[in-house]
C-alpha cells in the first residue's frame, strides 16, 4: 500500500518540480530578447517530440545532432542571462502578484504630481512603468534603487545636477526599480528630425515592450505619455490621470486609451 501511494506521489512531485523550473525559466526570460530564442527552441523541441512519436528517423537524427551542437551555442547566447539567473536563484518569490487598484491609483498620483512639478521647472524626465512584459534588461542598464515611488524621489532623481538624472527610471509594482536606465531608441522614420532623443527613447521602449512611459520635454516642459509606440497628447492633469488609469488599472493587457496620430508626422 505504501509503495502504491509513493508510486502516485513520486511522478506528481517530479512534474511539480519540473513545472516550477520551467515556469521560473519562462518568467526569467519573459520580455527579454532571449525569450524569442527560447520560443524558437521550444518549437524545435515540439517538432523533435512529434518526429520521435511518428518515427521520422531522418528528422530525428538531424534534430538530435542539432541539439547536441546547440548546447554550446546556447550557453554562449545566454551567457549573460545564465550568469544573472544563477546569481538570482533563490532570491525571487515563485509567483509574484499584482497591486491592488488603490495602490496603482496612489502610484499614478505620485507620478502625476512629480511630472507636473518637473514640467513647471522645464526639467526633462522619462518614467517607464512596467506592465506584463518585464523590463529587466533595461533595469540592469541603470542603477538599481528598489525604492518606494514618491513624487519627491522622482523630482530628486531628475534634478539636472544629480548623478542619476540622465536616462530614465523604471517602476516595477510600487517601487522604482532603477534610475539612469538606457532605453532603446526608436528608429521609426515617421519621427525623424521632429523629436529629440528623450522622445525617441520613450517610443523605443514602448515599441519593444508593453511599458507605459510618462515623459517631460526639457525644451518645452510638455508632458507626454507613450504607449504601444505612439504618443498620447496630454492637455491637462485630469487627462493624464485618466489615461494612466485606463492603461494601468482597467484592462492592463489592452490599450484602453487610443493613442492619436498627432505625433506621427
Amino acid at each position, binding site marked *: 500500500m505504501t509503495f502504491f501511494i509513493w508510486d502516485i506521489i513520486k*511522478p506528481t512531485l*517530479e*512534474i*511539480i518540480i*519540473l*513545472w*516550477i*523550473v*520551467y*515556469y521560473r*525559466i*519562462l*518568467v526569467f526570460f*519573459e520580455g527579454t530578447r532571449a525569450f524569442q530564442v527560447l520560443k524558437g527552441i*521550444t518549437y524545435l523541441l515540439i517538432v523533435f*517530440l512529434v518526429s*520521435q512519436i511518428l518515427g521520422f528517423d531522418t528528422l530525428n537524427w538531424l534534430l538530435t545532432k542539432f541539439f547536441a551542437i546547440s548546447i554550446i551555442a546556447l550557453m554562449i547566447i545566454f551567457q549573460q542571462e545564465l550568469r544573472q539567473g544563477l546569481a538570482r536563484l533563490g532570491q525571487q518569490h515563485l*509567483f*509574484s*502578484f*499584482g497591486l*491592488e487598484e488603490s495602490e496603482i491609483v496612489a502610484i499614478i498620483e505620485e507620478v502625476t504630481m512629480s511630472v507636473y512639478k518637473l514640467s513647471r521647472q522645464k526639467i526633462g524626465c522619462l518614467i517607464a512603468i512596467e506592465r506584463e512584459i518585464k523590463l529587466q534588461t533595461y533595469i540592469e542598464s541603470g542603477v538599481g534603487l528598489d525604492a518606494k515611488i514618491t513624487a519627491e524621489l522622482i523630482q530628486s532623481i531628475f534634478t539636472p545636477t544629480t548623478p542619476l538624472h540622465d536616462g530614465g527610471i523604471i517602476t516595477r509594482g510600487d517601487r522604482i526599480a532603477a534610475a539612469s536606465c538606457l532605453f532603446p531608441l526608436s528608429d521609426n522614420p515617421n519621427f525623424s528630425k521632429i523629436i529629440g532623443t528623450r522622445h525617441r527613447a520613450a517610443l523605443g521602449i514602448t515599441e519593444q515592450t508593453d511599458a507605459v512611459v510618462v515623459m517631460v520635454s526639457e525644451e518645452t516642459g510638455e508632458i507626454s505619455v507613450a504607449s504601444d509606440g505612439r504618443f498620447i497628447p496630454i492637455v491637462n492633469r485630469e487627462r493624464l490621470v485618466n489615461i494612466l488609469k485606463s492603461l494601468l488599472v482597467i484592462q492592463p493587457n489592452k490599450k484602453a486609451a487610443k493613442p492619436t496620430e498627432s505625433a506621427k508626422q
Partner: protein
Amino acid sequence: MSLKEFVKEKITHNIGLKIIALGLAVITWIYVSGELINR
C-alpha cells in the same frame, strides 16, 4: 484582500506562462519516463 482573492490572484497571475510551463513539464516527464522504460 481576503484569502479567497489572494489565492485567486496567485493562481491567475501569469496564467498563460503557468499553463505553458505545466504542459512542458508533463511532456518532459512523459518523454523521459518513456526513454527510461525503453532502457
